[in-house]
């Protein structure tokens, strides 16, 4: 399964990363209180989305398992992790960070196999950022009194993460929680549990005290049981806005603290004075990075009318050079869609989009051979899109770009902000004052100017409005896991 260049300009020889580095077990249990135990629910299979090959059988945690995990976390919090001096907690986190670096190749390959993302991304983005995140928060563990949020942990955190960046989202959740003295019960997504389970082994390797990190696998029911458990003090969730809403309802009337990192429909705004080649790279990175399975993806291109034709032409040319195929091939740009279910959703919205723009614009994808097995969707754009179209309003969570135009900065602001979401936005222009003007007026938690999809452990991430609340990363990310200085 050689990655197929969508243009025949360059033929690359296959350059697959070796799978030999990973050892996937036939089955996995739940990681509770420092050891792997059997789950009492119905186990489920995780598949390689690029081949549909079954990778492993994974335990499902039922309510009793959730209860066992929460109790283990509570014991570990009260007896070990809470009372432990911050500088000792820090050293465990540093250990974990170092092991992640040492086992980086293994983690990257496993992530690409289970998730379908190109090895170039898991190797160069996901895993290094995971290690960096643990290093960053390790250093906070003994400095919390300088954070502005106090130094008292909340207790036990219940954390539910999505399948798009399985290990990176785990790091975003676990590193700050542990640094602040909380213990965690984390549920990875049902389609991507394997790197979380390898992380459990890393916790063992680091001699992390039992119960500080508990990993329970399962689907929606397991997540709901965790969020509803009276023994947790904190819910941290990354995923869809619908599930976020359900969680907000579930915790109503409790004292649980909640952070939600939800969907987005980011505008990527290109002005007529923008350096076109850089902007085109930014558009491509904004929407096709990680197959568009990115909550902050730049899924709405707003391009100034005077340069729309030129930008579109160059964008199409660039899209024609993207290589889609084997996620483990080092030349692959676009990997597999994570699941059959997600592929069906992307296809459905794209078909709706095709009907919506018919007559006014087009659905376009470069000529692109899709592998016969696995879940694939070509990089696609829609022109002639209006703000009322579903393709411009709903999160596709796939490699699908809606193109809209504008004439004035005011119109760009209005269109960009015309969404219930508010996670991220992009601005491309050579004019500094215009960048700052736009950055002020865009109602979004992250504004990338002349760049896009950049992440760093020191930089807070999170949304306005229906993109959720709370921040992850940076000093601000500590607030989610500390009691604050208020009585």
């Amino acid at each position, binding site marked *: 399964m050689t990655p197929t260049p969508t243009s025949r300009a360059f033929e690359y020889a296959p350059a697959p990363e070796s799978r030999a580095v990973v050892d996937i077990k036939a089955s996995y249990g739940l990681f509770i209180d420092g050891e792997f135990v059997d789950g009492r629910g119905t186990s489920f299979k995780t598949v390689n989305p690029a081949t549909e090959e079954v990778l492993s059988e994974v335990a499902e945690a039922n309510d009793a398992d959730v209860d066992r995990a929460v109790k283990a976390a509570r014991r570990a919090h009260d007896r070990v992790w809470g009372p432990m001096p911050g500088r000792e907690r820090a050293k465990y986190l540093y250990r974990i960070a170092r092991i992640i670096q040492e086992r980086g190749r293994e983690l990257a390959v496993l992530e690409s196999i289970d998730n379908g993302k190109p090895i170039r991304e898991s190797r160069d983005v996901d895993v290094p950022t995971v290690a960096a995140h643990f290093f960053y928060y390790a250093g906070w563990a003994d400095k919390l009194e300088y954070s502005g949020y106090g130094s008292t942990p909340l207790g036990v955190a219940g954390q539910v993460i999505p399948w798009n960046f399985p290990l990176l989202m785990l790091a975003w959740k676990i590193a700050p929680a542990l640094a602040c003295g909380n213990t965690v019960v984390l549920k990875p997504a049902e389609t991507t549990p394997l790197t979380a389970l390898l992380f459990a082994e890393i916790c063992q390797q680091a001699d992390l005290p039992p119960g500080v990190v508990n990993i329970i696998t399962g689907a929606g029911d397991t997540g709901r049981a965790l969020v509803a458990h009276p023994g947790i003090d904190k819910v941290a969730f990354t995923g869809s806005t619908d599930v976020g*809403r359900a969680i*907000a309802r579930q915790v109503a009337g409790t004292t649980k603290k909640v952070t939600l990192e939800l969907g987005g429909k980011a505008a990527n705004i290109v002005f007529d004075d923008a350096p076109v080649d850089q902007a085109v790279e930014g558009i491509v990175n904004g929407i096709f990075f990680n197959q568009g399975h990115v909550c902050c993806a730049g899924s709405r291109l707003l391009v100034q009318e005077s340069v729309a034709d030129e930008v579109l032409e160059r964008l199409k040319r660039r899209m024609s050079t993207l290589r889609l195929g084997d996620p483990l091939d080092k030349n692959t740009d676009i990997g597999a869609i994570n699941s059959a279910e997600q592929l069906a959703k992307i296809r459905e919205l794209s078909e709706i989009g095709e009907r919506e723009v018919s007559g006014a614009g087009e659905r376009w994808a470069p000529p692109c051979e899709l592998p016969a097995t696995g879940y694939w969707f070509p990089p696609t754009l829609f022109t002639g899109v209006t703000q009322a179209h579903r393709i411009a309003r709903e999160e596709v969570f796939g490699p699908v770009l809606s193109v809209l135009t504008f004439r004035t900065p005011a119109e760009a602001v209005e269109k960009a902000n015309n969404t219930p979401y508010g996670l991220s936005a992009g601005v491309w222009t050579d004019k500094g004052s215009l960048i700052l003007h736009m950055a002020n007026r865009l109602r*979004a938690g*992250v504004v990338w100017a002349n760049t896009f999809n950049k992440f760093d452990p020191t930089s*807070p991430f999170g949304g306005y409005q229906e993109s959720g609340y709370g921040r992850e990363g940076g000093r601000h990310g500590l607030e989610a896991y500390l009691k*604050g200085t*208020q009585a």
Partner: protein
Amino acid sequence: MSRIDVRKTSKLYIGGAFPRSESGYSYAVNDARGRFVANAALASRKDARDAVVAARKAFGGWSTRTAYNRAQVLYRVAEVMEDRRPQFVEAVRQAEGLNESRAARVVDEAVDRLVWYAGWADKITQVTGNANPVAGPFFNLSTPEPTGVVAVLAPQASSLLGLVSAVAPVVVTGNTAVVVSSYDRPLPAVTFAEVLATSDVPGGVVNILTGSAATIAPWLASHMDVNALELVGLAGDAALAALATELEVAAAENLKRVRRAPAAEPDWTADPGLAAMTAFLETKTVWHPIGV
């Protein structure tokens, strides 16, 4: 013959104007000993919606004013309040059943609280924002921004100091507010509205509804153009716990930020800290490459 006094039926404060309730209803307000003082407008669902429209309309202008200007505007409110101390002392005395000197202390504290919050307008960004040293050639800055339209259920017991302590932190950072006053003790809020109207606060930045939180709040909690809820007005009343949960459930529909009610009404004379401001702030992070 002694003079017949002119009795006042107070009105609502919406968009800088003083309408009567659209419903036409008013209710009798008694003092702490149960003696009739005045009639107050009983705000309806429609009034709440009008107030949200006014607050949304005011948000763009208020949130983009300079922080220095917002500080000036709030300080001016304190000046005008100070000027009307006797009226406030009388209102607090009646509402809360305090003697003259205790009521005066409450008013002093309320004015001082406003001055304190006014000063935060151009400092909160520095205290809650920061530059982020990312591992790459990028400028990266995180700053707070107002959440939007905030519905505030004002405290039931502390009719002036509690009111000011709940409203000032919301608007000083650039949010606009729809406030539901104490039901039994609405008159200090009415006088406060008259102060707002005669100082430099733009119409719609603070809207004050007198009436029942239990009646009005569900409409605010489910309103899709309200961004956040301050529930402190439900504190200290166990009978309202179910209402608080109901409001939080309704708020989930558009993921409003909800500041839950504490078990008991806070001690309003204590140092407020930053929490009442930061609960209604978003953090925006801006990236830009550095290079030649």
